[in-house]
């Protein structure tokens, strides 16, 4: 697990970025998560996660245009790096491996339907 560390919220953020595909910056990410997952996201939590992802090298950023509605401040766009994609794939693979390893009985017993 050392190679690709990805926290739960970080994973949500990076997946959302992949969903968005373009116009990826904090406000769009925030809106996307809030509408899809029905959870509120504060800018503080989001920016911290983004900074962490950037530190880890999973995303890179570049400054975009400044608009009037942003009081003349630039947007900071994000893009998933190759390493980021690997991390996502790794994360998905590990989950799947674990899912596959669960015996059917156990799922049934603890599942909400039983």
């Amino acid at each position: 697990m050392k190679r690709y560390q990805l926290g739960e919220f970080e994973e949500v953020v990076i997946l959302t970025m992949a969903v968005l595909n373009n116009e990826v910056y904090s406000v769009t990410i925030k809106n996307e998560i809030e509408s899809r997952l029905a959870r509120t996201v504060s800018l503080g939590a989001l920016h911290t996660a983004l900074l962490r992802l950037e530190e880890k090298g999973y995303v890179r950023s570049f400054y975009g245009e400044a608009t009037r509605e942003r009081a003349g401040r630039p947007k900071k766009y994000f893009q998933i790096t190759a390493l980021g994609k690997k991390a996502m794939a790794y994360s998905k693979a590990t989950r799947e491996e674990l899912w596959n390893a669960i015996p059917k009985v156990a799922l049934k017993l603890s599942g909400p339907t039983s």
Partner: protein
Amino acid sequence: MKHSPPGFFHRFFRWYCHPKHRDYIEGDLMEVYEKRLERLGKRGADRKFIIDVLLLFRPGIIKPFRGYKNLNTSGMYKSYFKVGWRNLTRHKAFSFINVGGLALGMTVAMFIGLWIYDELSFDKYHQHYDRIAKVWQGGIDQQTHAIDGGYGLQYPVGATLKNHYGQYFEQVLMAWWITDFTLSVDDKKFARTGEFIDAGGPEMLSLKMLSGSYRSLYDPQSIILSKSLAKTMFGDDDPVNKTLRIDNKVEAKVAGVYEDIPPNNTFSKVQFFAPWPLLKMLQPWVNNRDDDWDNHFVNTYVRLRPNVTVEEANAGIHNLYADHIPPDYYKTIASDEPFVQVVPMSTWHLYSEFSNGHPATGRIVFVWLFGIAGAFVLLLACINFVNLSTARSERRAREVGVRKTMGSMNGQLVMQFLSESFMVVLLAFFLSLVFLTLFQQAFNDLVDKRIALPLGNPWFWLMAAGFILVTAFMAGLYPAFYLSSFKPVKVLKGVIHTDQFAAVPRKALVVIQFTVSVVLIIGTLVVFKQVQFARNRPVGYSRQGLIEVSLNDPAYASKLDVLKTGLLNSGAVSGVATSFSAVTRINNITGGYTWQGKDPDLDAQFVNCEVSPEFGKTIGWEIVAGRDFSPDIAADTISSIIINEAAAKYMGMTDPVGQTFTDVDEFGNFQWSKTIIGVVRDIVMASPYEPVYQTIFHYGGNARGVMHIRLHPAISAGEALPRIKAVFDGVVPSALFDYKFADEEYAMKFGQEERIGKLSGIFSTLAVLISCLGLFGLVSYVAEQRTKEIGIRKVVGASVFAIWKMLSKDFVILVIVSSALAIPFSYFLMERWLLKYEYRTDISWWIFAATAAGAVIITLLTVSYQALKAALMNPVQSLRSE
């Protein structure tokens, strides 16, 4: 109107946010706010905005506390040290003066620091240091009306303290004086210092017992030895349970061995402890003194209970005499208001001199004196650094200009120069460590101590680090601010303010240096003059070739006449006499005398000395009136005394010979009466700085304490002593032949003053040396700066002498100013110092004249080398150099 988010929180966000993230996050906030405005209205949007701002307040987004710095500064510091090092190596002479001067100053300061530490930790070896005290009795002196007293106590005081004041004291211990005894085992004899003390002594002093226990001395015929003494006496054998003899009178069994008490302790001289009952066997007259409130002759030590302060104990025992002396006797001394107090161990060493009954002063004066002198020597070295750095500022001015143009701030340049001074001080410190190790032995000899460098002690290094920092700041602060204050435009144009006022602080510092030096020199000269003055004082007898032998063995008593004849027949001796005590010491002062025409208020205290009739001839005293004792006149033994001149003066007699001298007891009852048959020239027995005490000499039977032997003038001491020893060994084989030369004993009285003289001599030499080093640096700088000017002057026709005069004049004036400042100051200081001596020299004008002249000459010598070098330079060369 356009809506904007709450201003306070907006500003709060901009304040705390890391500048790197501030802009785009602010953009996000604004964009979200705009959208919310449409959906939720102003209030809702504001509320959400506030929540967002507060939730953004988290690590990673907040700017760092220490300001926003993205630079790695270690490279900068590296370059500071590199530039500093290059500057040092480029100007080797200046660096030598700086580092060498500072190292000298720091060495002195560190030696003194170690010395002070040693003094302050005196007696701290004992675990109960805080609670040990010695009992002191005092009363009002009827003549001076001040409180006077001493440690000598009446015998019953100890028991009274124990029985009636036990609430203050955990231990009360009777003890004898710390003196020399002769220990013998088989036929080996050793003169050793020891202490007779109650059995609880080892526990009070928390001795480290190597064998035996704190109960060892409870056996009245036991003794415990220091490890080194046990080794000398018994070699590698186990000393325990061996028997030895003390003064050839009593036997004692070794009950234990303790670790030697280290040198900086009151009890360090004590090499054995023996129990108090044994002393009573050794000195039978000490017995049956339980009700004797008249004789003051024992010491009493106490250990306070843990929660009792010295003040409480003193208040409690103050009235011991009034409450416990039999009333009819107390009446006779009540007017003196006698009292007792305890003097804590912490004051024994540093505050050994009493003033009006309180420990007031003593060696603490030297702690202060040397501390101040050391600080000054260090200050002088720091001044050198300041002067040389500011004087040579021109060399660094361009660098400062360029650094400032490139964006260095004042603060950064200050840091740069401080780090350079730190580097110099660090170098000096390591050099001074070398000096410390080299001169450690010499220093210890000088101050008569055994101070080791605590190189393994982490506290030493901590103190050293603090010391380095303080010195670096003292030396570097002013230059750092001075150098960093240059204006870059001016400096780079080549205009540096070298007007005459720039040199004023430098001149003031030179004046300080030489003032301190001159004060120290004058002080040294006065101390030596005082010592010389006391040395040249007529002592009233002849010290050369006179030896004293202590008659501390009972076997002497019956053999004195045989011994005398044997010595005289040996041919090595020209005179033999005995007396009660040594000539170089006063042992016995008693009062209660009267004579015709006595002033009734006079206390009439006299030194009493019982001598044999040959005493005067042997020591070589000088009879000024009357005659000497004669063995042929029988009456001399019972009814004659000889007095000294001081006594004649004290009694107010112009023609004392033939007068009657009477002894009375404290109730005024007649004891005896004798006739004065002669007057002798004053003999200096006690301190050579004090007036001679009035003394009476008896021809008496008690003259058996010390034997005085005058070596035959025709025979050398090396030849005479073995012959004398042979006589002693033949007549009294049991006794130890332990002799002392009178002139050596006398010379020891000057030890303290000579030590001060030597130390202040060293201080002033170093002060002068350091000041001259600085001066040398300044002159060479000035000469270098004025090379062109000197060249032109020479071309125009100036003589070498004129140029030498021009360069030297300024400095000589500074030194003269310093002398003018130093002379009144040192006169004031030294006059006060001399006041404490009764027999003192005067401060003559020639000391000041000689010192001032000496300072000017030394200055000229220092300056002339560089001045002449500059003056002799060929102008062709100096003008061509560019």
